[in-house]
C-alpha cells in the first residue's frame, strides 16, 4: 500500500500493529508479542510485508489470548489482518 511504501516497510507495519493492540494489552506487551510472533514465522521486523500479516496474526493469537481471552484475541487478530495486512473481510 502507499502508506507502507512511504513510511518505510516492515517497521511501519509493526508500529501499526502495536497501535491496534495497545488499548487492550499495552504498547510494550504488544510490541513484545509481535516481535516474538515475527521470529516464529521466520521473518524480521524490517523485512515484514503485508503478506506476512496473516501468518503473523495466526502466530500471535495464542499469546494474545493469554491476556484478553480467546474471543478478543480472535477479534484483534482479525482486525490486524484487515487493517494492517489489507486482507478483505468475508
Amino acid at each position, binding site marked *: 500500500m502507499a502508506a507502507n511504501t512511504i513510511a518505510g516497510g516492515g517497521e511501519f507495519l509493526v508500529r501499526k500493529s502495536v497501535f*491496534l493492540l495497545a488499548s487492550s494489552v499495552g504498547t*510494550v*506487551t504488544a510490541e513484545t508479542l509481535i516481535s516474538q510472533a515475527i521470529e516464529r514465522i521466520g521473518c524480521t521486523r524490517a523485512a515484514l510485508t503485508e503478506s506476512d500479516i496473516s501468518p503473523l496474526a495466526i502466530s500471535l493469537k495464542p499469546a494474545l489470548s493469554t*491476556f484478553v*481471552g480467546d474471543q478478543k484475541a480472535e477479534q484483534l487478530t482479525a482486525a490486524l489482518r484487515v487493517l494492517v495486512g489489507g486482507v478483505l473481510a468475508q
Partner: protein
Amino acid sequence: MESIEQTRPIDLSASRSSSRYSIWRWTALGALVVIEATFWFTAATFRVGWGARVAVCAALALSALTMSLLSARSFGRGQVARRSWMMIGCLGIVDTVLFATYLLPGLSAAQQGPADVDTVARSGSVVLVGTVLSMLSRFMLAYVLWTTARVYRQSGLRFHFYRRDYAVVGVLLVLAVISLVYSSAAMRVQLPRVVTYAPHLMQWFDLTELARLFALGCCSVFGVVVWRYATEMGGGLVAKAWRSVLLYAAIYLLRFAYTGVLSHVITAGPPSPGMRSLYVAGLWALILAEFMLFLGASYQYEACSSKIEIPQELDALASQAQLRG
C-alpha cells in the same frame, strides 16, 4: 487449519466505545459517595449503618464476581487467567460474608443486658469460620499473583525490580506485622462479648491471624512483582485490571493495620467522639478496597469483551511513532 486469505467480519465502526464501561464505574462510585454521605449526616444505629455497608459491599462483590466469571469464561480451559479470575471473583464475596457475620445476634456491644453464652459462642464461631475463609482467600490471592507473575515472565515481558519496589514490599510487610500485633486489640473492640463469654475462641482467632500474616506477606511480594509487570506493559486495560486488584489487596491490608492500631488506642484510653469518625474511616477503607476489586474485574471484563478500539488515523500515528523512533 485457519485460512490466511480471508478473515471473519469485524465491526470496524467500533472505536473509542469504552463509555458504557466507564459510566458503570462512575455510577458505582457515585452511589458509594451518596450512601456514605447520607450515613455521615444522619444518626443511624450500629446495625443499620453496618447493614447498609454490608449491602454496599455485597453489591460490589456480586458485580465483581459476575464480571470475573464472565472474563474467566473468555479464557480457554487450562489457561492460568481463567483460574485466576474465577478466584479473584470469590475474594469480594468472602470479604462481604466476613463483614456480615458481625451482625449476628449476641455480638453487638450496643445490645442491652446480659447475653446468652451459647448464642455468643455460636455467633463467635461463625465469625471465626468467616475469618478462616478470609485467611484462605489471601492464600488464594497469593497463588493467583504468583501464577500471573510466572505467566508474564514466560510471555517475554521485561522485568526490572527497582529499589522503590523493595521499599514498597518492606512497607507492606510492616503493615502486615502491625495488623498482626494489634489484631487481638481489634478483636477485643469488635467482638467484646466473645472475649467475655467465649474466650477459648480467641486463641483460634490468633492462630488464624498468624496464618493470615504469612499469606499477606506472600501477597505483598508477589503483588509488587505483578505491579511491576503491569507497569512494564505500557498501559492497556489488562494492566489497569491488575493494578486495581493490587490496590484492593494493599488497601485491605492498610485497613487491617489501621483498625488494629485504632482499636489499641481505644482500649488503652478513654473513648472520645473523634474515635467514631476515625473508626468509620476504617469502614470506608474496606468499601474502597471492594470498589477497587470491582474496578479490576470491570477492566478485565472490558479487555475481554469490549469491541476493538481502532485508533483514528492509524497510519498517521504509526508513521509518527516510526519517525520518533
